[in-house]
C-alpha cells in the first residue's frame, strides 16, 4: 500500500516533465483560407471563370448559316495550326513584342539609371515626364502618334526638312510604326521596374569598383548591370506580355491591314462573328505568352542565379 502510494507520487512528480507543453489556444485551421477568400473569389469570378468559358468556347464549332454549335472538338486549333495566315499573324505579334521589349530595355534601363543619378528637383520632374504617358489614355496617345506618323505628319516633314530622307517613310500601317508607338507606351513600365532594382543598389559599390581601377564602362558592365538584371527581366516580362496582347495601338497604327493576334481575335468576334475561332486565337495567344515568358525567366534566372537569391 505504502509502496503503491510512493509510486503514485513519483508518477505525479514526473508528470509535468513528460506531459506535452501547456496547450496554446487552438487556432482555427480555416483562418488563412477565410482571410484570403475575398481575394480568391475576385480572382475566380473575374479571371478564372472568363478564361474557362473562353477555352470552352474555343472548342465549339461555327458555320455561317448555323452559327455557334455546341459541340466539343478541336477543329479550330487544327485550322489555326494548318493555316499559314495565322502563322504570319502570330509570328508578327511576337516579333513586334520582342522588338518592343528589347527597345524598352535599351531605352528604359539607361533612363532609370540616369534618373537615379539626377539631383533632387530635376529627378522628380523627369520621373513625372517619363511616367506621364501612363496618365493619358492609350487611345488618345496612339491617335497622337497617328497624327505624327502620316506622310504629311510632323515626323516625316521634319526628317525631309532636315534633308535626311527624300520621300516620306511609311509609318502608318507598318510594323515600324506599331513598334515605335508601343515602345513609347510601354517604356514607363521598364523604367519603374529597373528603378526599383536600382533602389537596392549600394551607391558605394560603383565607387568601390572605381577605386579598384575599373573605368566607367567596366563599372557599368561588370558591377551595375548584373545587379539590375532582375529589374530588367521583370520589366521585360511586363512589357512583353502587354505588347503581345496590345490592342488599341496595333488597331489604330496597324489598321486592318496589319493584323496582330489581339486585333485578329477582335475581328473574329465582332466582324466575322466566328466566336469560337476568336476564342481559339485568344487561348493560343495566352498559352504562347506564358510559355515564352516562363521559358525566358528560367533561362535568365539560371544565368544570374546569385543575384536572384
Amino acid at each position, binding site marked *: 500500500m505504502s509502496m503503491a502510494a510512493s509510486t503514485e507520487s513519483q508518477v505525479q512528480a514526473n508528470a509535468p516533465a513528460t506531459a506535452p507543453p501547456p496547450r496554446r489556444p487552438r487556432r482555427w485551421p480555416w483562418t488563412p483560407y477565410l482571410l484570403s477568400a475575398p481575394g480568391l473569389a475576385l480572382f475566380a469570378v473575374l479571371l478564372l471563370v472568363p478564361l474557362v468559358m473562353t477555352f470552352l468556347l474555343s472548342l465549339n464549332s461555327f458555320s455561317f448559316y448555323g452559327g455557334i454549335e455546341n459541340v466539343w472538338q478541336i477543329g479550330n486549333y487544327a485550322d489555326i495550326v494548318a493555316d499559314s495566315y495565322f502563322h504570319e499573324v502570330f509570328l508578327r505579334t511576337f516579333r513586334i513584342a520582342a522588338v518592343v521589349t528589347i527597345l524598352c530595355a535599351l531605352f528604359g534601363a539607361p533612363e532609370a539609371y540616369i534618373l537615379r543619378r539626377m539631383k533632387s528637383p530635376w529627378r522628380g520632374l523627369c520621373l513625372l515626364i517619363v511616367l506621364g504617358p501612363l496618365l493619358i489614355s492609350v487611345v488618345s496617345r496612339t491617335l497622337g502618334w497617328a497624327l505624327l506618323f502620316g506622310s504629311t505628319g510632323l515626323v516625316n516633314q521634319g526628317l525631309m526638312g532636315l534633308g535626311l530622307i527624300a520621300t516620306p517613310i511609311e509609318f502608318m500601317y507598318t510594323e515600324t510604326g506599331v513598334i515605335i508607338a508601343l515602345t513609347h507606351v510601354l517604356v514607363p513600365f521598364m523604367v519603374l521596374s529597373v528603378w526599383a532594382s536600382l533602389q537596392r543598389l549600394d551607391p558605394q559599390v560603383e565607387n568601390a569598383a572605381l577605386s*579598384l581601377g575599373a573605368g566607367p564602362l567596366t563599372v557599368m558592365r561588370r558591377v551595375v548591370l548584373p545587379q539590375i538584371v532582375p529589374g530588367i527581366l521583370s520589366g521585360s516580362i511586363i512589357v512583353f506580355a502587354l505588347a503581345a496582347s496590345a490592342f488599341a495601338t496595333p488597331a489604330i497604327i496597324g489598321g486592318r491591314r496589319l493584323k496582330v493576334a489581339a486585333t485578329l481575335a477582335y475581328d473574329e468576334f465582332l466582324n466575322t462573328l466566328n466566336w469560337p475561332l476568336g476564342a481559339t486565337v485568344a487561348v493560343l495567344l495566352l498559352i504562347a505568352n506564358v510559355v515564352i515568358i516562363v521559358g525566358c525567366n528560367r533561362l535568365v534566372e539560371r544565368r544570374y542565379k*546569385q543575384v536572384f537569391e
Partner: protein
Amino acid sequence: MAYLVLDQLTKRFGNWTAVDNVSLTVEKGELISLLGPSGCGKTTTLQMIAGFLDADGGRVMLDGQDLLAKKPNERGLGIVFQSYALFPHMTAAENVAFGLEMRRIARADRDRMVADALKLVGLEQYGDRHPRRMSGGQQQRVALARALVIKPSLLLLDEPLSNLDAKMREEMQIELRRIQRTVGTTMILVTHDQSEAMALSDRVVVMNKGRIQQVATPQEAYDHPANAFVANFLGRTNLLPGMVGGGSAGTVITVADSVWPVSQPMAAGPGALAVRPEKIGFVDAGGLSGTVLARVFQGTQWLFEIETAAGRLMVIRQHDGSPLPAERERVMVGWRPDDMAVMPADPDTASGAREAA
C-alpha cells in the same frame, strides 16, 4: 619628405565649408585617424583623397605626385567602405580578384594573390561564398582583402567597424592592427569613435567643423588636449574656467580658491583648465575646495561628483582600500600640474565641445 601631404584642402557645399584649409602630413607606413563628430569633415576629406569628391582648393600629394590631377580609377588607392560595398553578384574570391583583373594580372598569379589575401584576413575557406551568405565581420574582411590585394599606395578606411557589434568590433580592431603591422601599408582611418581611434592609430587628427583641432599621438592628445573641444571629445574631462595671470613664480591660472602654475607661455586673461577625472586626488591643502555631492561605486573604482566654486567636478578614485570621503563631506581636491592642460577660453571651441558631448 612626407609620404602623403594634404595642403590647405578645402571643400564647400553651397555656402557651408565642410573642409576648411586642412593641412596634414602622413609618413609612410603610418596609421592615422581622422576623428571627430559627424559633420566635422572627416569623411569629406577622405572622399576628396579618394577622388569621389572634387576639392575646391588645396593640394593632395602622394609620394611626390599630385593626386587630385588623377581620376579616381587611376589613383591606385585601396578603400574600405562603411557599407563594405562588396559586389553582391560575385563570390568572395571574385570580389578580391576584381582589382587584379582590372590590372590585367595573369590568371595564375591572380589566383595565388587572391588566396594569399583571403588567408591574410583569415577567410581561406570562404573563397567561393557570396557576400549575402557571410556575416558582417566576414564581409568586412573580404572588403579589407579586396582593398589590400592590389597593394595600394594608401589604404582609406571609412568608418570600417561601425556596422559591427561591440564584440566583433574589438576583434576586428586587433585584426586590423595585426594586418597593418604585417603589410605595412599607410592607412587613413575615419572614425567618430574615440576609443577605436586611440586603440588603432599611431597619430590621431581631431577635427571639428571642417578644421583640424589637434594632430598628436593618442596618448599626447589625451593627456595634453590642445583645446576644450579635444579635451571633451577624447574621453571624459573636467573643464574649469579660470583667470591666467603673471605671478611671482611665473605664469599661473587661478581657479576659484586655487592657483596652478602654467608651464607654457600664455597671455593674461580668461582661460580654462582641463583635467581628467582619474588624475584628481583628495589633498589636505593647496587645492580646490568643495563638497561631495554624490559617490557611486563602480566595481573597480569610485565615481565622485564634487561641487566647487568653479563648477561641478567629476573624480574617479581606484577602489583599493584607501579611505575616501563620504557624501556631503567638505573636501579639497588637487592634481599634479603635469596632468592638467591650460587653454585660452575660446568661445567657439567651447561651444563645439558642448555639441559633441
